[in-house]
């Protein structure tokens, strides 16, 4: 390839039947993301663990808005689940060329008191499952020369938060994985990025003290839709040259 060809090679555009899987899409950031991606033209596999009702609601909202979606359920922490979910999404919608690894759990405890189960559960769902889904989608995306992977990390990880050693380890791990996978597959038209949400108004943060907002320069919690917009951008063709990056969506918390 000549230098000129390298310089002028146009980025691949998203195929019309491209499908993206959003995990944890029965509520909160995942549901808002699924809706936003559908509006942007993706066919959306609405992933859920226990919240089948929420996932059905997300699918209904997407369909009412004129998009296409299908709910795919399963415990993503189980071995083999990633490939099953992706295959199910592909059978129903189209080639799965994207994934938003959003599903996450918390099991907070001071490190001294953190049990093996609390550690394992958070790492399994927040990190290991994200890797397995990424791997399953990469096999298809690399072949298609087009793909979008967005990992939902957190301000916790890059920044400390007492009581969340497991969560911080998983989310930091996601950011490290994002960078490494990004450089592996960049030349195949596949981008891999992360978002790092701060204090977002969801069920996961409902029990957190509002005093925490004093640490947020914006002085308000973020809305799930504000995170969804950032994810949607990274998953779009507008972000074709953005890869390996982490976009902080945190009202200035990490600045």
């Amino acid at each position, binding site marked *: 390839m000549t230098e000129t060809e390298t310089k002028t090679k146009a980025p691949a555009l998203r195929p019309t039947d491209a499908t993206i899987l959003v995990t944890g899409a029965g509520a909160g950031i995942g549901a808002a993301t699924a809706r936003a991606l559908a509006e942007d033209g993706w066919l959306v596999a609405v992933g859920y663990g226990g919240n089948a009702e929420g996932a059905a609601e997300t699918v209904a909202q997407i369909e009412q808005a004129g998009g296409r979606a299908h709910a795919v359920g399963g415990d993503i922490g189980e071995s083999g689940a990633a490939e099953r979910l992706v295959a199910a999404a592909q059978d129903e919608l189209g080639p799965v060329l994207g994934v938003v690894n959003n599903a996450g759990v918390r099991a907070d405890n001071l490190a001294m008191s953190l049990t093996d189960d609390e550690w394992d559960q958070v790492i399994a769902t927040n990190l290991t499952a994200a890797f397995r889904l990424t791997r399953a989608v990469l096999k298809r995306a*690399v*072949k298609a020369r087009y793909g979008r992977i967005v990992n939902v990390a957190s301000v916790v990880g890059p920044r400390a938060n007492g009581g969340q050693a497991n969560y911080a380890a998983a989310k930091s791990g996601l950011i490290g994985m994002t960078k490494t996978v990004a450089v*592996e*597959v960049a*030349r*195949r038209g596949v981008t891999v990025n992360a978002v790092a949400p701060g204090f977002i108004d969801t069920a996961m943060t409902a029990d957190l003290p509002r005093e925490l907002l004093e640490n947020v320069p914006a002085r308000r919690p973020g809305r799930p839709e504000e995170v969804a917009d950032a994810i949607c951008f990274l998953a779009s063709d507008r972000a074709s040259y953005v890869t390996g990056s982490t976009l902080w969506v945190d009202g200035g918390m990490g600045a």
Partner: protein
Amino acid sequence: MPATTTDVEATVNEALESFGAEAADINRDATLESLDIDSLDLAELSQVVEEKYGVTLKSTDAESLKTVGNAIDLIVERAK
């Protein structure tokens, strides 16, 4: 699908071309390095031959694969 040398050669050549190697440069004696074939390409080739012939190529195999012919022979051998 039977893994004849001819068939495997066609599969490998097609894959190498899709990775960006010039068709005119691809032959049994060409080194993978000269064709600019790297570890990601080999991982993708591995996926192709696994789907087509049920043959698994490991990342450690890459060290012994110097030429296109080496890759073809290894795949044919494993498919037996």
